């Protein structure tokens, strides 16, 4: 019993630290990706390639003056960022990053807790996240904030329906609500993933889930709650310092949550795209090794003087990572983590790509789209899946 508590505490500390670091650096990655889409270098001043920019941002946000306007509804104004943050970080505790593994003689699941209703838990927590935005908009006592909060709650209620229906159909195929069991049933290769597998491949559900996820996280092209050309900044216009930062972080935490949910529900979670006997064990090492070779090549045929020293160092780092992936003792827990991070990262990249590409919807288009197209499509998909699953078994 005691060891259970100790292991859980250690796991919680690791997951929390990793999540917060990812949150900070996700923002750096997003700025870089957007910058390269728009053909500019992005953050470049603080550290090499702006790598220390997140640290600078955190220090800036922590030391800024924390202003509470005199005309706000104080209890709700203070509750809102706390609520948004808590609900955004809470769902990570049921997300499985890998199977049950043995690390240093301790056998444990790569997951904080395996609820048998894990999917519903994530849904419940994310549906509570609306309050943070709605209260922030209302308590600020500001017309732009109120409009942003109203838009956001209307949008989140509307898109939660297709989202839940899109989640329901892969659950029908897999016949479980536990996230780790869900992944276990998709093991064996890319043809067993819920997107391609089953009596009815869930491609439509996957697309609907992604679209609804964009709306749920208030991202472009559905970022009307914070449409800056109409609403200044939307629901968080009256917030400063750490309170503003917590809204910002909760948005990114929500993005990570929906991306990992998409990975778990449709893309097979931590399992490799093809079975281990065909060499999927060596894929990460090959990828990192190839990246190292490219860096080494450009270090030898350098374009700028400093590349002669910096790129070989980068190459050495990549080679070390590749070597770590080849060690038998780390492979057991590192490989699932790699595939999980690769799939989730791919979806996160899609989020940024879309942000750099698509314009914003108009408000009536946003509502018409979900009620007239997305919801019926999700319903139809669920019906067809249900009939086929019942007919198959």
């Amino acid at each position, binding site marked *: 019993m005691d060891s259970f508590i100790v292991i859980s505490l250690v796991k919680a500390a690791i997951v929390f630290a990793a999540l917060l670091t990812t949150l900070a650096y996700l923002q750096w990655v997003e700025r870089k990706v957007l910058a390269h889409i728009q053909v500019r270098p992005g953050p470049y001043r603080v550290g090499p390639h702006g790598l220390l920019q997140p640290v600078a941002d955190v220090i800036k946000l922590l030391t800024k003056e924390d202003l509470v306007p005199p005309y706000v509804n104080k209890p709700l104004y203070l509750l809102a960022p706390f609520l948004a943050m808590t609900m955004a970080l809470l769902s990570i505790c049921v997300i499985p990053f890998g199977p049950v593994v043995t690390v240093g003689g301790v056998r444990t699941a790569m997951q904080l807790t395996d609820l*048998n*209703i894990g999917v519903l838990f994530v*849904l419940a*927590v994310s*549906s*509570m996240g609306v*309050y943070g935005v709605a209260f922030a908009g209302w308590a600020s006592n500001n017309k732009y904030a109120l409009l942003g909060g109203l838009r956001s709650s209307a949008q*989140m209620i509307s898109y939660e329906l297709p989202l839940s229906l899109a989640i329901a159909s892969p659950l029908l195929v897999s016949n479980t609500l536990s996230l780790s069991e869900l992944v276990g049933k998709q093991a064996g290769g890319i043809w067993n993933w819920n997107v391609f597998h089953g009596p009815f491949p869930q491609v439509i559900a996957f697309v609907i889930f992604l679209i609804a996820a964009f709306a749920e996280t208030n991202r472009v092209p559905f970022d009307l709650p914070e449409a800056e050309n109409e609403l200044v900044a939307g629901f968080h216009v009256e917030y400063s310092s750490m309170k503003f930062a917590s809204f910002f972080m909760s948005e990114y935490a929500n993005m990570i949550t929906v991306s990992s949910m998409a990975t778990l529900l449709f893309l097979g979670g931590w399992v490799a795209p093809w079975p281990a006997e065909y060499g999927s064990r060596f894929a990460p090492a090959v990828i990192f090794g190839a990246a190292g070779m490219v860096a080494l090549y450009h270090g030898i045929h350098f374009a700028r003087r400093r590349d002669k020293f910096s790129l070989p160092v980068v190459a050495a780092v990549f080679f070390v990572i590749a070597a770590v992936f080849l060690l038998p003792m780390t492979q057991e827990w590192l490989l699932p983590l790699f595939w999980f991070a690769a799939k989730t990262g791919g979806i996160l990249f899609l989020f940024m790509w879309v942000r750099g590409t698509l314009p914003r919807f108009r408000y009536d288009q946003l509502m018409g789209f979900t009620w007239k197209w997305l919801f019926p499509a999700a319903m139809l998909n669920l019906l067809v899946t249900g009939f086929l699953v019942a007919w198959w078994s």
Partner: protein
Amino acid sequence: MDVILFLIFAVVAVVCAINVVVQTHPISSAVSLVGVMGSLAVLYLLLGAEFIAAAQVIVYAGAIMVLFVFVIMLLNAGAEAKEGRSLMVRFLGIPALVMLLGLLAYFVQRLFPRGDMVHFGGFTGGSPRDIGMALFTTYLLPFEATSILILIAIVGAIVLARKEMD
């Protein structure tokens, strides 16, 4: 541990429920109601009904109360003024409350004999499969009747809203 959690969340639920009535501002009442729903979900969880707990949070706290808050925000309802209490409320209010609580306690005692106490985590029919089976076999008729009732209410709301618009 179970008893401590039960006491904490039972107290939170009751305090929030009283707060719903006491608060003058509709938003504060709505927040308290969310608190009631949340602590009820924890109580279901303590009994071992995970699915019902999750459904409670998703449906009541996450969807219905969000709509409540949304409408309150949309109408921009202000704080209500506390009106002076009438003579009857002043003299009969507390005795009537005590009598109601006493009656409730009496009936609960009578209906549930001491033999079968509630056990924490003792409820086994709470898995999604069990609830689905119960809903679509034993309770199919009430279930469908309820959904038709809700549909009628929705149609009625739309009819009323259209009449206002014309």
